[in-house]
């Protein structure tokens, strides 16, 4: 009753949560065997920058648009086309509507 069955697989969250709870307890105990403390006043709490001087905080934060550079870089051609299509022009919105309507009508009319 608690699980769902798709005909090709299944998923029972309750048992999984049980596993997670037990594993969490175990690992929490294991973790608590380790050393808890650290010296909070020394330089070791400073971020590691390979010895470079620490910048002001605004510049230490990697900006959102700089993330996933590698992804965007390898799909550059795709994105150039995609951004061109999103023109922001109201007329284009309606144009797309008419185009899809025409394509759909041709598909239904022909087949």
């Amino acid at each position, binding site marked *: 009753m608690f699980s769902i069955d798709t005909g090709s697989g299944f998923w029972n969250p309750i048992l999984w949560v049980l596993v997670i709870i037990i594993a969490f307890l175990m690992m929490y105990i294991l973790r608590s065997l380790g050393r808890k403390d650290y010296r909070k006043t020394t330089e070791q709490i400073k971020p590691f920058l390979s010895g470079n001087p620490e910048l002001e905080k605004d510049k230490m934060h990697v900006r959102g648009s700089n993330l996933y550079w590698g992804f965007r870089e390898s799909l550059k051609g795709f994105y150039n086309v995609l951004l061109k299509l999103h023109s922001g*022009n109201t007329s284009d919105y*309606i144009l797309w509507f008419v185009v899809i309507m025409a394509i759909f009508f041709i598909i239904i009319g022909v087949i």
Partner: protein
Amino acid sequence: MIFNIPFIAVAALIIIGLYAVIFRKNLIKTVIGITIIESGVNLFLITLGYREGGVPPIYTNLPEDVSIPRGMVLPVPQALTLTSIVIGVAVLALMLSLVIHIYRVYGTLDVRRIRRLRE
């Protein structure tokens, strides 16, 4: 053929309206285009309501020879058209007020320049 004229007019109005929305650059013309489409659709509705030799659905001045309610025209299309016109007016007013606001902020009505939101 003569009975098809309203339907040809409907098609023409809708196409003219779509043309105005898609290819005209001025926002007011876009609004006008939508209104033209709306007129086309309304014309279509009202044309559907026409029955040759029908009697208006008013009970008080019914001709003697017409049986009730067989000879009467069903007033549904007229009612639909009226509703649609009322809605159309509301949409038109809303669109025009937005155009006024856009003009205030952007200083232009050119649809190509009103696209701060894109990508």
